[in-house]
């Protein structure tokens, strides 16, 4: 019952803080045959609509996330792969697979049960072509007392474009993260008869053929509509500058016009879309982790010089490149879409590019093992706590008071701090303000030889997975290891107490032998 009350309070508090959507309908607006609703063990729910288009294949829309113990939050108006650009190292051929061929329609492969062994096949038009399955993510959390993998919903379909088979995948994690990815499998596409060229590799058993190296550039188009309005999202870039002092200071650039941005590894730059102008509003951030390869060919494709774009939503700005091919009244590529429009009080679309350079190896023949590329969209200020935390009631650890202590300079410290936990949880210990030369480990073992005199204010904390207990005490390191009169002439209260107790004890001790002698 107390747990239920706590949950209610949490939901109420969340609503009061304006965390969650109110103006939008609280659920996707599509028929049951194109709607996917997945609830996880922690209570979180993903709810969305999907369709397959001839060009992009999977297009997700009206994407809502309900956090554990929370209410539905609109996240995306739509999400799709908006181009699959493949550039070969010999520069003879460049493919824009989405617009030249398409990932849907006739390029979509019919899937069999064996292609979706752990899930359910859904029909695209009249044939099974979408696999929906539940699994564990690679990530989660682990502590001294528990470990959990985040549950995830995976949606994928496979498109055969030339020799390549592209697995278009969207993963929705129970912790609120979204992970779009593409797996490239099938077979190598292009080769050359001129094996003297430095643009590829000869593979064993195929000596007269040079299989050409190439780069896959994946562009995703994400129309964020976080929270209660499509037009109040705010976009910012966060950087962490190294200061002359050696610290890293946060710098937040909140943009007011459309942007084309490059990764900035040195300043660990990442991008965030907030639901509104409040810094504590729900947000989703993208960290460009998979950026070890970065394709540039500015001279012929200026947009390739950038990794991330923010534009005002425009239905005819659909593809990252070759857009005008299907939208003749619109501009042709994503860099052209960035033309100085204000993004204040507008519906924002972000475009994220991930590159992967593929060097052929023997193992790629005849059929390649899948190489996956994608990125993670992480929630911030969306959940109220760690997503998959064990819900069992938890007691606060107890730590007995620690008295003021005195230690001689250089004396070996070798002892344990002990706390208790009614639940039997494993406790971890930390400390602040310890005398120089003394450390504490996670198990509460104090060790070392104090090497600097002084009076230290020490706080020791014992913690389980959810709570902590702390005690603060004074620890004096001096030449004698005993309490001593301060230079100011004032006597330490604890020392005075000690002396008083000693005096009483001594008097009593002295009296007893006297009586005995009597």
């Amino acid at each position: 019952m107390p747990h239920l009350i706590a949950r209610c309070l949490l939901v109420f508090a969340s609503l009061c803080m304006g965390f969650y959507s109110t103006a939008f309908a609280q659920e996707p607006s599509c028929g049951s045959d194109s709607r996917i609703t997945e609830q996880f063990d922690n209570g979180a729910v993903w709810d969305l609509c999907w369709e397959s288009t001839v060009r992009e294949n999977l297009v997700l829309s009206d994407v809502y996330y309900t956090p554990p113990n929370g209410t539905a939050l609109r996240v995306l108006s739509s999400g799709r792969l908006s181009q699959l650009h493949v550039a070969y190292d010999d520069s003879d051929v460049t493919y824009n697979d989405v617009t030249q061929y398409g990932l849907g329609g006739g390029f979509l492969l019919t899937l069999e049960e064996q292609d979706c062994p752990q899930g359910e096949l859904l029909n695209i038009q009249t044939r099974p072509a979408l696999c929906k399955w539940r699994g564990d993510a690679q990530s989660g959390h682990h502590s001294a007392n528990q470990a959990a993998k985040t549950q995830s919903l995976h949606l994928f379909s496979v498109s055969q474009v030339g020799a390549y088979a592209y697995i278009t995948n969207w993963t929705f994690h129970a912790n609120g993260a979204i992970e779009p990815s593409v797996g490239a499998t099938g077979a190598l596409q292009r080769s050359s008869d001129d094996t003297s060229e430095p643009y590829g590799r000869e593979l064993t058993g195929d000596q007269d053929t040079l299989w050409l190296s190439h780069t896959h550039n994946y562009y995703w188009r994400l129309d964020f509509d976080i929270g209660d309005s499509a037009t109040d999202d705010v976009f910012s870039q966060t950087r962490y500058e190294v200061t002359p002092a050696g610290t890293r200071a946060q710098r937040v650039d909140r943009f007011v016009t459309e942007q084309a941005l490059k990764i900035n590894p040195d300043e660990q730059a990442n991008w965030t879309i907030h639901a509104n102008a409040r810094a504590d509003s729900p947000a989703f951030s993208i960290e460009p982790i998979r950026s070890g390869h970065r394709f540039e060919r500015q001279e012929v494709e200026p947009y390739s010089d950038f990794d991330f774009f923010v534009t005002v939503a425009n239905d005819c700005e659909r593809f990252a490149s070759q857009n005008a091919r299907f939208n003749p009244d619109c501009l042709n590529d994503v860099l052209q879409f960035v033309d100085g429009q204000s993004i204040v009080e507008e519906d924002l679309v972000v475009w994220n590019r991930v590159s992967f350079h593929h060097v052929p190896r023997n193992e790629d023949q005849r059929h390649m093992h899948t190489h996956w590329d994608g990125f993670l969209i992480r929630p911030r200020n969306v959940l109220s706590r760690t997503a998959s935390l064990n819900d069992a009631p938890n007691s606060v650890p107890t730590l007995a008071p620690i008295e003021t202590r005195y230690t001689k300079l250089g004396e070996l410290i070798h002892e344990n701090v002990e706390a208790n936990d009614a639940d039997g949880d494993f406790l971890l210990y930390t400390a602040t303000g310890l005398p120089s030369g003394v450390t504490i480990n996670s198990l509460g073992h104090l060790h070392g030889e104090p090497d600097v005199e002084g009076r230290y204010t020490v706080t020791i904390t014992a913690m389980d997975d959810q709570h902590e207990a702390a005690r603060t005490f004074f620890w004096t390191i001096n030449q004698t290891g005993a309490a001593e009169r301060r230079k100011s002439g004032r006597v330490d209260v604890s020392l005075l107490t000690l002396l008083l107790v000693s005096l009483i004890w001594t008097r009593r001790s002295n009296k007893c032998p006297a009586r005995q002698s009597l």
Partner: protein
Amino acid sequence: MNTLLTATNCSYRFVLMTIMTFCLQPFQVASAQDTNCPQGSILQQSFSSGASWSVCATVSDTHGLEVSNVYYRAPGDSSRSVLSEAQVAQILLHYHDKATAEPQFSPLTTLTEESLQTTIQRLSQATCMGDVINVGEQPESVCSRVENNRTLAKYAQRESLHSEAWELSGTLLRESLTLSISWTFTEDGQIRPEVSVSGRAARTQLDEQFSQNKRTDIPRFTRATVLSTWRLVPALDTDSLDTVEQFDFPLLVADQNRRPMQISAITEEALIEVDRQQFRGWRLVDASGAGYYLDPANQGYSYSSAEHNWANYEVAFTRYNACEHYALENPSAAETCGEHLNDFVNAESLSEQQVVMWYSQAHLLNPSIEDWPILGDVQIGFDLLPFDWTDTSPFEVVE
């Protein structure tokens, strides 16, 4: 054990190859058993395809879970050596409000076992989502788990190939954090080392420059950069010494924007930066031509350090020296050893020498409300990819 191949189609050659492999050479598996691995430390995993891995695992306070004598057997192949030794050589935790980084492994300050600031977590069913196993003299120190490795391959209307991966992990406790070190060995020969930081954040900072959380009812945890550095000693395939090739693909604007492949041998000890624009990568290769490729695809962030020059580089190659184990705080009692990776890189020739590869990755630890009370895993890992290890895919499909 799940079946690697869900197909029943007899046209898959590897099914036949697997059967032949089992019939013809059931006991030809070279493994960690052939070496000096301590009793109880040899771990093996076989998959239904015939693929298998064998490693010698050890767990220590100052490296976490390390592996040695790593052997991979591809379906239809024999068991072949891949790595001689591999471990995390240091983890730096650099809180953004501090000028200096804190090494998480402190072998220099070891006085007694109890004085170590990093301790091994004893695992249980609550903290391991697989099998808890004893390794050597460390009870309940390793978690072994076999997991789905998604679609291995798909082509046209042929049924998908699916594969599994074997993950070994061990966890260290450091302050209130957990540092989990895992090694994932995939059925198709990839090795995925990873450091995962979780547990409870304990450092707090009110200054918004260094902390993120805006909610007032929970602490404002201090942001940090985590730099994990790995030490990899290859022992590829045959007994001959391995060499290192660096691959670069520079853009030649004047030559029609072509990208010629440039392969250069690393013949001398060196500190090297990633080059994202040139798609730089490194291949460790045996005289037989069999190799493994380290592709720094997950290098999104860089680390910069005024105090540790080596930490400004993502990669280093050194000549093998048994006492050069830690990128920082390396015990240097022996005269031949330095105290950190910068000391190890001193222009020695790598020609005809056992080479050691050091690889560093930075990641941002930026706690939000979603990380309270326990941090979501901050994962820092990479892939070692078989590169011409076999002549074709060992899971080859016959037309």
